[in-house]
């Protein structure tokens, strides 16, 4: 199989959520001497980009996104050793969490998946994360972005505190927020850099913002 054929099959296998096929194709590609970065950027990531596009236009539902992301992870596992030697293969590091007082993780996990699919290294702080933990993690892990989620109107106000703490700590990266009650107006009001209406948009807009920075 030529490199182009492997890339195309990888893309299709990611879209179809075929994790065993993805792993086998990555193994085959490595064996054929194809660079891990190429398998990632020409096969796996285009596959997840297409998944994101289909999710945005409501052709795909969440389980389909999740099985696609899992398939991509299966490929990343095969390529891990090689990719870790080439940090340039990743587009950036993002710290993500659900804000203090909020125990919901569905949206946050979905966004984390899409970030991973878009090539980010994700540091997931989980749920009910206080402002200082966002700040500490961003600093300690050298993150280029912080992403926050909230499901409740009663907890989304805590995002403002995190933004203020990050600014106070002179965090220079991008701050992106989202969640059911969150709006663009709210994001602007609290001084976040980006707002995303859904997981796919979050990954797209953060990647675009990082590329432009």
């Amino acid at each position, binding site marked *: 199989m030529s490199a182009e054929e492997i890339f195309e099959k990888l893309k299709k296998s990611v879209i179809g959520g075929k994790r065993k096929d993805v792993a086998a194709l990555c193994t085959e590609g490595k064996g054929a001497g194809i660079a891990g970065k190429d398998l990632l950027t020409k096969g796996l990531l285009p596959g997840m980009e297409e998944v994101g596009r289909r999710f945005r236009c409501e052709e795909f*539902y969440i389980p*389909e996104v999740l099985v696609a992301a899992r398939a991509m992870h299966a490929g990343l596992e095969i390529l891990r050793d090689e990719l870790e030697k080439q940090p340039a293969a990743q587009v950036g590091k993002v710290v993500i969490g659900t804000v203090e007082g909020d125990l919901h993780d*569905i949206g946050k996990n979905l966004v984390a998946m899409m970030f991973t699919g878009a090539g980010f290294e994700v540091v997931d702080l989980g749920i009910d994360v206080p402002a200082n933990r966002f700040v500490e993690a961003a600093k300690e892990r050298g993150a280029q972005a912080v992403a926050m989620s909230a499901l409740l109107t*009663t907890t989304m106000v805590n995002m403002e505190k995190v933004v203020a703490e990050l600014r106070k700590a002179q965090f220079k990266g991008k701050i992106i927020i989202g969640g059911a009650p969150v709006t663009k107006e709210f994001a602007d009001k609290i001084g976040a850099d980006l707002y995303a209406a859904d997981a796919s948009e979050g990954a797209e807009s953060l990647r675009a913002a990082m590329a432009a920075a």
Partner: protein
Amino acid sequence: MTPRERFLAALERRPLPGRVPHFELVFYLTMEAFGKVHPSQRTYKQWKQMSETERQLHRDEMAQLYAQTAERFGQDAVMLHPNPSDDDELFRLIDNVNERTGRSVALVMHGDATYGIPDGERMTEFSMRLYEEPDAMKAEAAARVERALKKGERIKAHGGLDGFALCSDYCLNTGPFLRPAMFAEFVAPYLKQLVAGYREQGFYVIKHTDGNIMPILDQLLDANPHALHSLDPQAGVDMAEMVRLAAGKVCLIGNVNCGLLDTGTEEECVESARYALKHGMKAPGYVFSTSNCIYTGMRLSRYELILDVLRKEGVRPDPATVR
């Protein structure tokens, strides 16, 4: 008619003059309203160590809280959250609340067994299993229904409970978690079986789900619950549209915008309550309710505000007095 009779009449979509019945899935603000923690928020780690006298004091206090909530806020039905949740304590709670209300308030409790949206930690595994082990997932779905109906049998034998609220959430604000075709495969048949089983046992069934239900509305209606609950306007579910599409098949409960109760102005809250009432009252079966519940963190005054709208504007004329 008692509040219970009015609530059940609404579920059966029978003509119902007078004030529209009212129900909330949960009223969590018991500390603010009554100075007591909601029963579902308590942890009785030493329940079995307590003397029977002490246990009974706790049972009485929880039962009293449910009865007080119904009375103070004009709730025609209350949702029980038995704590502890074994059969014996459940039966005691049912009897205790019924004794206090004179069986005048309808009692419901959780009874879903279908697959809802899994939490974030289990979501990927759940999704993978749908694709990789579909037969095992269906067998599990059937077993869950069987277990729920067995419990239903035990509750029926005891008596005193009117129905179940099936609270597995199927939808997000954007739409169903599962593609409608997958919902038809992994959820709808079991929901239908569960509803039919409960109906056969003599229970009323309220199907609750958050989110935008419109893409699976036909499947929800086909399951034949007595009522659909939440009808969430934050997810784009419109009461006028629901009346048009579903009022002939199911009782409608909900649609007063919980998000507005939190962040909107008083005028917006009143307007949301008015909108739900205006259209809901056109349905033969309609129960006034928020689009979720009176949850922790909400202002009690906002709940009281929409109840005021219900009292003033949620009254159907009695045909006998209308000329």
